[in-house]
């Protein structure tokens, strides 16, 4: 050292600088050891995770066909505008809102909602911003690729309902799984994720897991902006299975037309094959267009239409056939009659009861619509004698009525294979409540219950099922809309990770009927009464079709108890035909129009006419007609 200056101690100070520098470099070395040697695998995994992405390839959903193979629902290709997560990570997304809204004709609120969703759920690569993109949308996205690298166009099959409002309640619709559903075990266990399309309502919901295909994916390498650099692996999707339904499109069309032509345009028509429970037609009016839900939920107009459906006081979203509960009125007398015979309140040989033009309970007189003397059962059915049933029910007692309710399953769901079916309300369900509130079950309630009023409100499907079972000598089938699922082949190579096993075809899982014990004589007396309603000058005589005998029962149900003061009665007609060898059972209900024979029966007749025309070439089946000697006499 040439600069000897001990007061400054320069040499020592230079050593200090050198030591400090080396210590700092050593610290860097220690940190390197920690990051690269100790935790190297962890960071490699992090790097791997952020550059490899799985892009799902949606699987086409199975089609839904009518029993003759006509298309009811299918999927057609549409283009979606898809938003990638990665490029959005480092930017303020609120700046994008007005741009997207203008460029893609979307509502700013909706865009904000979507952007927030994708920001929050950062494990997801992409999310649909707009479905069914138009050519203009596609052009806009393509021309703004540099500005908005997060947007891309993807091909996706879109559910399409070619018949619009027809069958809407049966088919349901599809939509993106809701955040609430994602929480539920039912959906979680099926491995569903946000953005997945699931069936909502109707067959789409009931058979979602079979209609749904198994999505494939593309494993790709992406850069930090989420742009695909290269493809590592592709797994092709497996399409969903096609569903052959029990619906007969011709009968369905007629049913819908009949309801549309009715006075109030509100009601239900169901046609069922009583031999197996297959539903041939199921119409509930007013209806809705499922396409609005599948395509419209992303557009302002669509959202307005959906809101209008929800707010409509006529409740078009509500499936009246399985969710509506109506007093059955006189149609109730059919299962009641059979119950009385089974329990021995009356016998086939001695079924006469007094009409008396009505009955007095306490100081209240409840009248019959006519004065029928003391008629036998068949006559009472044919002419819908209320007085007969007042006394019959009092003889059966409320316990007898409840036993009948249990026999015909009015205390449970019919088991139809579409969701949200309601259970009818009957004296069985009301009795404990009434006794708690009023201290006892009074006779007047039994009298009202005998003609399907007051404590009796039933779903049309449960009533049809019960009445049809009588036409079948007691075989009560589970009504259903699923006839058959078509099989689908395997995808990929067996044993590999992208192998999807073949899915076999199958039919309805509950084909066995409940057997209700009834003798041939009991069957005869009830069905003869029903035969007379149409064929023997009864309350439904107006719809007689020569050569095609219909067994039916009209009903005219007062609904003042529902609080709709001044509203007209509900018109019912429940039937099966040919009367003694039924091939089809039909129930009709028109809300608030008046007499059942005048309003509901003609609508049902329309369905029968189409049935004859399409199934029997316009000629009624042979042996369907029986001798007029059957007409019941007093």
């Amino acid at each position, binding site marked *: *050292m*040439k*600069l000897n*200056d001990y*007061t*400054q101690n*320069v*040499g020592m*100070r*230079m050593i*200090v*600088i*050198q030591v*400090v*520098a*080396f210590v*700092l*470099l050593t610290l*860097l*070395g220690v*940190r*390197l*050891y920690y*990051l*690269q*040697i100790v*935790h*190297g*695998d*962890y*960071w*490699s995994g*992090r*790097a791997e995770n*952020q*550059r490899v992405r799985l892009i799902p390839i949606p699987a086409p959903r199975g089609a839904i066909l009518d029993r003759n193979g006509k298309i009811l629902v299918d999927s057609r290709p549409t283009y979606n505008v898809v938003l990638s997560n990665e490029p959005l*990570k*480092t930017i303020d997304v609120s700046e994008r809102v007005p741009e997207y809204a203008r460029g893609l004709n979307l509502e700013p609120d909706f865009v904000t909602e979507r952007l927030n969703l994708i920001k929050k759920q*950062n494990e997801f690569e992409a999310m649909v911003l707009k479905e069914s993109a138009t050519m203009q949308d596609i052009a806009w996205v393509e021309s703004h690729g540099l500005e908005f690298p997060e947007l891309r166009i993807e091909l996706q099959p879109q559910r399409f309902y070619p018949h619009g409002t027809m069958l809407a309640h049966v088919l349901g619709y599809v939509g993106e799984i809701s955040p609430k559903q994602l929480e539920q075990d039912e959906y979680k266990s099926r491995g569903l994720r946000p953005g997945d399309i699931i069936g909502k309502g109707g067959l789409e919901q009931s058979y979602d897991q079979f209609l749904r295909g198994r999505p494939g994916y593309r494993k790709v*390498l*992406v*850069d*930090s*902006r989420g742009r695909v*650099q*290269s493809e590592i692996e592709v797994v092709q999707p497996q399409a969903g299975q096609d569903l052959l339904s029990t619906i007969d499109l011709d009968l369905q069309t007629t049913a819908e037309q009949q309801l549309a032509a009715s006075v109030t345009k509100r009601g239900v028509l169901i046609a069922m094959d009583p031999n197996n429970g297959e539903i041939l037609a199921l119409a509930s009016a007013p209806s809705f267009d499922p396409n609005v839900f599948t395509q419209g939920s992303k557009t302002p107009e669509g959202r307005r239409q959906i809101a209008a459906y929800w707010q409509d006081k006529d409740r078009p979203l509500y499936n009246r056939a399985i969710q509506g509960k109506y007093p059955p009125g006189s149609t109730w007398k059919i299962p009641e009659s059979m119950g009385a015979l089974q329990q021995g309140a009356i016998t086939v040989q001695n079924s006469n009861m007094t009409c008396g033009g009505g009955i007095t309970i306490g100081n209240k007189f409840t009248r019959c619509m006519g004065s029928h003397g003391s008629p036998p059962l068949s006559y009472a059915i044919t002419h819908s004698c209320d007085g007969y049933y007042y006394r019959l029910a009092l003889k059966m007692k409320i316990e007898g009525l409840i036993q009948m309710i249990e026999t015909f399953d009015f205390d449970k769901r019919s088991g139809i294979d579409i969701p949200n079916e309601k259970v009818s309300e009957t004296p069985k369900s009301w009795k404990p409540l009434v006794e708690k509130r009023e201290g006892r079950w009074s006779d007047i309630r039994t009298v009202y219950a005998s003609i399907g009023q007051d404590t009796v409100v039933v779903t049309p499907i449960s009533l049809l099922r019960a009445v049809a079972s009588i036409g079948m000598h007691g075989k009560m089938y589970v009504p259903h809309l699923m006839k058959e699922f078509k099989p689908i082949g395997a995808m990929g190579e067996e044993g590999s990770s992208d192998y999807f096993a073949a899915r076999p075809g199958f039919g309805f899982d509950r084909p066995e009927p409940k057997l209700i014990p009834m003798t041939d004589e009991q069957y005869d007396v009830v069905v003869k009464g029903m035969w007379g309603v149409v064929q023997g000058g009864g309350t439904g005589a107006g719809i007689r079709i020569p050569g095609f005998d219909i067994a039916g029962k009209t009903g005219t149900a007062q609904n003042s108890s529902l609080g709709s003061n001044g509203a007209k009665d509900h018109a019912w007609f429940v039937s099966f035909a040919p009367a003694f060898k039924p091939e089809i059972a039909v129930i009709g209900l028109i809300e608030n129009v008046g007499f059942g024979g005048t309003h509901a029966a003609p609508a049902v007749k329309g369905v029968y006419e189409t049935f004859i025309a399409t199934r029997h070439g316009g000629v009624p089946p042979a042996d369907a007609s029986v001798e007029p000697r059957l007409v019941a006499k007093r």
Partner: protein
Amino acid sequence: MVAIIEKRDLRDFDWLTTLLAIAIAAFGVWQIHNALPNESYWSKQIVGIGIALFAFFVIVFSDYRRIIDLAPFFYGFGLLLLALVLTPLGVEVNGQQAWVKLPVIGQFQPSEFAKIPTVLMLARYFGQKKGGALTIRETLVGVAILAGPVGLIMLEPDAGQAITYFPLLAAVLFLSGIKVRYVIGGLVLAAIMIPTAYYVGVQTGVIKRYQQERINAILDPESVDPRGYGYHTVQSVITVGKGGIAGIQGDSQTSQSVLKFLPEPQTDFIFAVTAENTGFVGCISLLLAYALLLSRMIAGAREANERPAMLVIMSIATALAFQIFMNMGMALGVLPVIGVPLPLMSAGLSALLTTFCAIGFVISIRMRRFVN
């Protein structure tokens, strides 16, 4: 100015230090290529090394004493260039007006070049000091010399560059007999004042949110939003850690920089690229190379026969050590993200030229140690 090259000069030429610097720069070219193989940064860097070596040899064969004598002139010129940045000739990049674009010469960063005149000016002033402890007056003059360039750089504003100037003065003051108790007192004061100032800065809003986030990313990297301002730090740490023991060895298709996860891979984060491609082995080798380079420089300072020469070398060595630590510390996620290039490695002509010029002075001084 260029002296006649004598035989004796060549004999005393420090080949080891020169070759070490060139080797590190060449290693840097390889890493720049690894960072962005499809871009031309690496080939530009080779041209840059050629230009820098030319300047290096001009300085090596000039008499450093005459250059130190002319220090005030160079210092003034440096300030002029820094002022030029703030005129319309300045070019704004990422919100910082740190560049000047001149016809023919092209675009360059005066805040890099101005380090050399600042070092020379400090060495000239403190080199005249004869002995005894540092006075307050001398300290203030030192601060004033530094305040010129640092003040102009803060106007750009470029806090990262400004910070790299402080070691220049710190080394000079330390070696000019500042009392040890002041040094210790200053360190203690800093230990108290820095957190306090940060707290006050956050409360008053002087420290902006992004700056705060960058600090938080160091203190607690897992809780910070990896997509926000912590992104650089998190991605850099991922890149370094991914390298493992021996690096990814050429699989550039999936590298962090090619897929653009690592920002600024050819400049500020070149060390992360090195770590990804060459792993722990490569990084430790690089650290040893830097350590050897610094040792050689400090050895040169010991052998210097006059005070200004010693101060020039030590000031440069300290500044280099500081920059290496700041840059690598940032890449390793232990220091906040500030734009300090890695000496000799980061792409960029201005920094490369400045570093080679600085090393040129060191060699020049060492070569002339037996003169007089």
